[in-house]
């Protein structure tokens, strides 16, 4: 897998974190925490819980940095995965105590691009715009399924139940949606 320059930089930081470099962790945090927090807020729909999970995710990264493999994921992807799995377990325990949130994966709220934070460089903005463009090429059904899975943390079966569709239909939407996305985003990957 080819890595961008900033991704290679991230890989180096993660290796230093594995060696116990606190400042390297701080660097990774400063670079990626805003996106991860946005992602977590999207999933959990609660700012304070999202910040807690953010903190836990990075703490886990601190502990498990030795287990990171660059071939399997980018550092951001790896961090996102940890954040996501912690968020999912929170959502499950929340669902155990209370009814699931209305938009566990927000297919409702508009995907507008907000004002960029002061620290953002121009290219992430452009990048996000391009990714949005790629997503626009998916059908509404495909996009919905991907969002429910990615942000809502729902499984096949849960998505099928939520949308009142047969399981096979959902599976095929996910596969075809991801395929289409891969095609659309190929230039940017």
């Amino acid at each position, binding site marked *: *897998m080819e890595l961008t320059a900033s991704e290679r930089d991230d890989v180096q930081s993660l290796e230093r974190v594995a060696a116990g470099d*606190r*400042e390297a962790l701080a660097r990774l945090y400063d670079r990626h925490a805003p996106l991860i927090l946005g992602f977590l807020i999207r999933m959990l729909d609660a700012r304070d819980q999202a910040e807690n999970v*953010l903190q836990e995710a990075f703490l886990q990264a601190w502990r498990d940095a030795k287990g990171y493999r660059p071939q399997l*994921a980018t550092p951001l*992807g790896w961090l996102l*995965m940890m954040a996501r799995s912690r968020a999912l377990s929170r959502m499950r325990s929340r669902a155990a105590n209370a009814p699931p949130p209305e938009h566990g994966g927000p297919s409702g709220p508009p995907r507008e691009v907000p004002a960029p934070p002061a620290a953002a460089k121009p290219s992430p903005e452009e990048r996000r715009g391009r990714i949005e463009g790629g997503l626009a090429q998916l059908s509404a059904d495909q996009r919905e399924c991907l969002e429910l899975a990615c942000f809502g*943390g729902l499984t096949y079966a849960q998505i099928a139940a939520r949308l009142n569709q047969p399981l096979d239909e959902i599976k095929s939407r996910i596969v075809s949606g*991801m395929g289409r996305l891969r095609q659309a985003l190929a230039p940017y*990957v």
Partner: protein
Amino acid sequence: MAHDPRFSDLLPAYALGALDGEELRELERHLRDGCAECGADLARWRRQVDLLAETVAPVQPSSATRTRLLVEVVKESTAVPADAPAPASPARSPKAVPRRIAPWLAGLAAAAAIALLIRGGSLDAQLGALRKQAGRLGEEVDRLGREGRESAGRADRVADDYRQAVEQRDRAVAESQRLQESLRAAEARLHAAETQLYAAETQVHAAEERGQQTAAELASLRRDMAQLSAQFAAVQARLLEKEDELHRARIQVASLQSNADRRAEIVDFLRQPDVYSVRLSATADGPELSAIAYVSARAQGAILLAHLPPPPPGRDYQLWSIADGPPDSAGVIQVDAEGNAAHRVDRVRAIGSVHTWAVSVEPKGGVATPTGRIVLAGKAG
């Protein structure tokens, strides 16, 4: 491990975290078994998912989260007490910092370490900073001790002020109660006065009513009196009228009486046995008059009955008897309102020889010898 194509379709869902149940377990086993193709494919799928995730709007976390994270990280890496080998130069073992770090100092150390982590620096610098922090903290403690004593003094003064304030409050409460009692007493007096006022007003009202009644009675009495006065006046007027009538009646009676007396007199004269009448008639240049004289020698007189018009102003009728010689006056004749005269003559001279009787108009009061016109004459005969 050989690649199994049926897992390829599951990889996108796995990357999304949408896989569960039996499929999930089998795929994970397959991946653990080290399928290289699936591993590479999965990495690419994960990238897609990352890109999907990147469409999210970034949100700046609060600085508290960063601090908490770094505190936890420092705690996890400085969990060992200070007797672990850390400083680079053992000769400069810090006297100020005790061998066993107190908990609060450990927390302080964590905070300081984080501060340095943020600012960067070597471990020596970290320890130096820590020592400085401890010194500053000691000064802080002294300062707090001084402030504590000052505060105690202020607290005493505040307690005094408080006691005074409580006393003032108690006095104010007592005063307020007194005022309330005065107020209640005043209200009671006001109420009594109002009751009296009401009673007085009731009396005034009753008196006014009586006054009005009396005035009405007075007016009625005045009207009655006015009526009575009017009646009295009327009665008086009638009384006066009656008195006039009476007076006129008396005059009439007197007149009638006089007439009656006169008649009686004339009748008595006429009863004389030797009475004879002499008719007088108007003379040639006199009006149509007539009279009659009754003469009685025995009575030595005569009565003349005549109807005459009133004499001219300033004149009287006079009667003359003529015997032998010039006429003798037989008196002025009184004529009444109806023109009737009944004139009596007593002591006619030589009555037995009187042959003519005459009436003339003379100056008022009569004269000794006739000067005026003779209006009536008659011979005895």
